[in-house]
């Protein structure tokens, strides 16, 4: 395990041409044509499975036809009074913070006429988590969506987007957490194995507000969920948690961006992934930017991967950029490893058989994130899914010493 405390990067940001692109300066556009077709050499595509994502690069009409690619199960939202009618691209607050950063996102913006707008009313405390159930109706069906989740000032609540079934689904998620609001947003990718899903989440957190953002991916063929969070307000707080379990043939990617913009903001990023089977793949690129005015920032990001068998690959790239000298703390860490022999020895020395010991270690590794979800139905579903993955992986040879 390695941990690195990074020194301020001001030396690297002189007025000369700097070939490495700063995360915050990534170009944005609402027009897909401005991005062109990615070649796979771009910084935000080079570790992606572009071949399988190709259907999402097609700029085509997706709202026609009798059968939509995604069925939206919104009964819980409706019952809780959290749905707001939203028509047209210009309907506020759509676009208040969202700017497409890649071609898939720009297509989703363009091809989705009416956004799904979920709003926690001002001052309302929503005790029960509310789950939106998005079900893909076919692996050959292309869908595009723009979704706005807006937590009005002082509101508190938990919104879950649960994805199942199969589709080729591009999605934008615009999250606005207004002053003093406390929102938990969980996106669960529980797709069938042939689903292709690319989603761009962009969140802004206002004064004294808090956002817990979670990405949980264990189903799907290719799942690319790229969340970014801008801690814009004074004392805004953000947590970004991720959990993934990649099986043979699955490509699970997250490019995570935490931007400390306001004064005295606090951010915590923790993504954990388990991988097993030939060709199982995970990609994590984490950027943290502490802006020029973000004095008193406290920030940490970490990615940990557990490689359970040979033939799996985890890419993990943490970046930290600091533009002010006056911060409370900043650090990042990345660790990818196989089973810890000492953990296994400890458990076995208490009579626990090796296979059971491995199960405990993997579940324990992922449980740190599971325990943060706070939505019993999702936690149970997830515990069940992890057990299922482990049963599937039980016959596979454990990662050899050099394998990780």
């Amino acid at each position, binding site marked *: 395990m390695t941990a690195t405390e990074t020194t301020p990067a001001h030396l690297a940001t002189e007025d000369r041409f700097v070939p490495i692109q700063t995360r915050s300066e990534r170009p944005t556009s609402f027009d897909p044509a401005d991005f062109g077709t990615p070649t796979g050499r771009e910084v935000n595509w080079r570790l992606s499975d572009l071949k399988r994502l190709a259907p999402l690069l097609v700029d085509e009409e997706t709202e026609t036809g009798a059968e939509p690619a995604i069925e939206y199960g919104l009964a819980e939202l409706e019952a809780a009074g959290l749905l707001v009618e939203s028509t047209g691209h210009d309907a506020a607050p759509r676009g208040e913070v969202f700017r497409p950063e890649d071609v898939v996102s720009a297509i989703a913006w363009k091809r989705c006429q009416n956004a799904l707008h979920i709003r926690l009313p001002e001052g309302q405390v929503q005790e029960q988590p509310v789950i939106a159930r998005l079900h893909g109706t076919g692996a050959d069906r292309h869908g595009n969506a723009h979704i706005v989740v807006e937590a009005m000032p002082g509101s508190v609540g938990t919104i879950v987007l649960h994805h199942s079934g199969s589709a080729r689904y591009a999605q934008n998620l615009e999250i606005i957490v207004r002053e003093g609001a406390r929102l938990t947003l969980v996106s669960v990718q529980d797709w069938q194995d042939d689903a292709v899903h690319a989603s761009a989440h962009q969140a802004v957190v206002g004064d004294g507000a808090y956002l817990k953002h979670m990405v949980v991916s264990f189903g799907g063929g290719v799942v690319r969920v790229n969340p970014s969070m801008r801690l814009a307000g004074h004392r805004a707080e953000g947590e970004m948690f991720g959990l993934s379990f990649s099986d043979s043939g699955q490509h699970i990617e997250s490019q995570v961006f935490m931007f400390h913009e306001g004064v005295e903001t606090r951010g915590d990023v923790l993504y954990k992934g388990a991988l097993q089977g030939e060709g199982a793949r995970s990609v994590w690129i984490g950027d943290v930017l502490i802006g020029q005015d973000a004095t008193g920032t406290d920030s940490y990001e970490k990615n940990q991967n557990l490689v359970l068998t040979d033939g799996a690959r985890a890419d993990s790239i943490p970046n930290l950029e600091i533009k002010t000298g006056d911060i409370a703390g900043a650090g990042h860490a990345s660790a990818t490893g196989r089973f*810890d*022999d*000492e*953990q296994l*020895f*400890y*458990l*076995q*020395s*208490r*009579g*626990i*058989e*090796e296979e*059971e*010991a491995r199960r*405990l*270690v993997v*579940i*324990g*590794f*992922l*449980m*740190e994130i599971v*325990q943060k979800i706070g939505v019993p139905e999702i936690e149970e579903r997830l515990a069940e899914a992890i057990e299922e993955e482990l049963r599937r992986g039980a016959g596979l040879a454990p990662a050899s010493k050099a394998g990780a």
Partner: protein
Amino acid sequence: MSVLDIKDLRVSIETEQGSKEILRGVDLTINSDEIHAIMGPNGSGKSTLAYTLAGHPRYTVDGGSITLDGEDVLEMSVDERARAGLFLAMQYPVEIPGVTVSNFLRTAKTAISGEAPRVREWIGDVRGAMEKLRMDPSFGERNVNEGFSGGEKKRHEILQMELLRPRFAVLDETDSGLDVDALRIVSEGVNRIKGETGLGVLLITHYTRILRYIQPDHVHVFVNGRIAEQGGRELADRLEEEGYDRYLKAGV
């Protein structure tokens, strides 16, 4: 009545410079209800003996035997040894993130006894054992060894010993890093368990301090991978006075 028998045990480890011999022929017989203290300077092979008994993969047995009531311990896997009744209280227990103490204890108990303990009885047993070790009930909800203080780790080791009821326990430097109060609580635990179950104890320590609380029947001085001297409790008192210099100078 059980017997743990170690005969002419020779053990090495792999290092970057090649194989290194650590134990050079150790003979030791421990009966139920006996306490044997293994003392010696750093690097004399005390911990190697402990980990070899437990079956840690890092250690290679080059010769000799370990038997438990005639059963070949060296043929057993790590978990089989535990189920046969061996227990190692570790000097540096490892953290297992995301696995709670209560889940861990229940899983271990189920593995050792071959069936899940009755829920109500088990909860009572755990609570009682924790009380005796003066551990807060909330301890059960914490992740194994994660963020535990030195004293908490050692108490947690003894808690496991109390609940798993082994026939023989190896206590590897259980006294290290403990303050006087924690040392007394942990020692009381060991004595209590021995009194109740006739546990045989192999107490590995560098210092004589713990021997004021746990009275050894036999004291063995380890030097350079061998037992250099054996005796009763009086040998420990002598070591307290003289230290290990005498053995080191003799170049045993």
